[in-house]
């Protein structure tokens, strides 16, 4: 318990001083972007990691909420708070509906249905030009000012993002060690037995699906605040695949894994790409190396290697599904 508190304090301090260390606006913005993607990756990790349901349609709730927020502020003229709440509600509702449709199947079938549903949403954004602006996307206008605070500049926006991220991480940390979290992991490992123990497996998975959609939608609203612009790319299959890779690369079914995955991929995409033309190749190499040496992901894999090097790790590896 005290260890968890210590890591929470350490993380909060690190997040607070980070922009002062970085200084440069580019890196402060990059940090905001990493936090948004980390939250997005944590949301899909709820499904692909804890529930064992690999989805390729997570961008639908992320981008859906981003579009909804921009549309409500820009076209409808709602105030920012109402628009943000409605946008998160829209993304979550979309997940509730898509959950009903895709949880009819499992495994590869589930993957294909989430992929198809995601593509439908992408298609709507791309083709329904009057509503969405089509390929040109939609402008957001301005960032909101929560509690009267101006977050239009990079530094305040970073802190705003960090606070939302911190709240989300805390909620997900509680979820991971809660009875519902245990139920969810149980349905991943032994769905048949869970049914036989009295669990409504479908409903457990659906609730997780909706929660996952909720956090993806929150990340989506942050994303549209960050860019002040949203286009069909936000809803694309590439976006869904990228966030899934973040969670798998870092370590599915852990809390730290998706965050590390988001850091690695966002850094390669934004920083390495300015030095290296073939940064996509580098990303590919990172994936291959990690799959070979740490198939369970960077975070659980590093812990395992660390234990081996320090000599404590001759015993069987600990389960990876715990929070780290």
């Amino acid at each position, binding site marked *: 318990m005290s260890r968890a508190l210590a890591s929470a304090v350490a993380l909060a301090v690190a997040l607070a001083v980070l922009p002062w260390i970085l200084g440069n606006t580019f890196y402060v913005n990059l940090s905001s972007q990493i936090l948004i993607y980390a939250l997005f990756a944590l949301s899909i990790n709820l499904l692909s990691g804890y529930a064992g349901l690999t989805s390729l349609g997570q961008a639908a709730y992320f981008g859906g909420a981003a579009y909804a927020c921009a549309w409500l502020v820009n076209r409808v003229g709602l105030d920012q708070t109402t628009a943000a709440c409605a946008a998160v509600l829209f993304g979550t509702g979309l997940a509730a509906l898509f959950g009903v449709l895709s949880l009819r199947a499992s495994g590869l079938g589930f993957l294909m249905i989430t992929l198809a549903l995601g593509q439908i949403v992408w298609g709507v954004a791309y083709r329904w030009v009057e509503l969405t602006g089509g390929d040109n996307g939609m402008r957001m206008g301005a960032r909101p000012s929560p509690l009267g605070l101006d977050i239009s500049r990079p530094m305040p926006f970073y802190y705003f993002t960090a606070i939302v991220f911190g709240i989300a991480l805390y909620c997900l940390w509680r979820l991971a060690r809660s009875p519902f979290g*245990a139920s969810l992991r149980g349905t991943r490992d032994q769905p048949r037995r869970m*049914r036989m123990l009295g669990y409504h497996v479908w409903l457990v998975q659906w609730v997780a699906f909706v929660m996952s959609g909720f956090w993806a939608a929150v990340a989506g609203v942050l994303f549209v605040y960050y860019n002040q612009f949203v286009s069909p790319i936000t809803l694309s299959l590439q976006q869904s695949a990228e966030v899934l890779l973040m969670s798998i690369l870092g370590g599915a079914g852990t809390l730290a894994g998706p965050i590390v995955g988001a850091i690695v991929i966002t850094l390669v995409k934004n920083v390495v790409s300015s030095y290296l033309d073939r940064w996509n190749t580098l990303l590919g190499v990172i994936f291959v190396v990690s799959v070979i040496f740490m198939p369970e992901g960077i975070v659980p894999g590093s812990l395992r290697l660390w234990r081996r090097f320090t000599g404590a790790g001759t015993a069987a590896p600990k389960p990876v599904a715990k929070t780290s």
Partner: protein
Amino acid sequence: MEPALHIQGLRKRFGGLPAIQDVSLQVMPGERRLIIGPNGAGKTTLFNLITGDLRPDAGSVRLFGEELLRLPTQQRIHKGLARTYQILTLFPRETLEHNVVLALLGLAPQRWNPWAALSGYSALHAAARAALADVGLGERAGRVVAETSYGERRRLELAMALAQKPKILLLDEPLAGLSQEERQSVQALLTKIPRDVTIVMIEHDMDVALAYAERITVLHYGQVIVEGTRAEVVADPRTKEVYLGD
């Protein structure tokens, strides 16, 4: 007296193959019922129909007068049904205690709580350790399932079912794969189960099973061919025919 388990006219076909044909049986409260029959007789299929893993084509399964067939599996469990598996179905990366906690949580409304820490439910963990102690695994509670022996896992299966305090317990070959010594210790555990639990057991080990059960049902090609007390069934020529072949 109302039967604990009342099955009437149960039928199930897999394509052209009739797996269960018009099976009817009554198990009274507190009874120890043994179901025997050669491989492919439909014993496990019968269990799967009772639990809801499979849907029957026709018939009725009632638990203390209440029809189960309309209910999904998890609701049948909440009515007091529990089952162990012939092929171990455990959570291998979790501790023994966590396995039993999951069993207890399955019947508790707290299983939906996404906020409180599971480790904070001390009563739940105490009950889980007590259930493990009852099957002689008290000292192993903190071990991960993957690090335990096969015999210990068999007993964990039993602990998970018993922890739920079922009214009726279906045991699918609880002695499968155990050594002679382990068989005796599991048998002793089975004998200890209180009489408010009705037990239906599938078992191939005749020495143990015959000594344990009061009434025996012989299944063959999905049909009940003999039913009666131990002595009646053993004496019946049809039993010999099924087991020794014709």
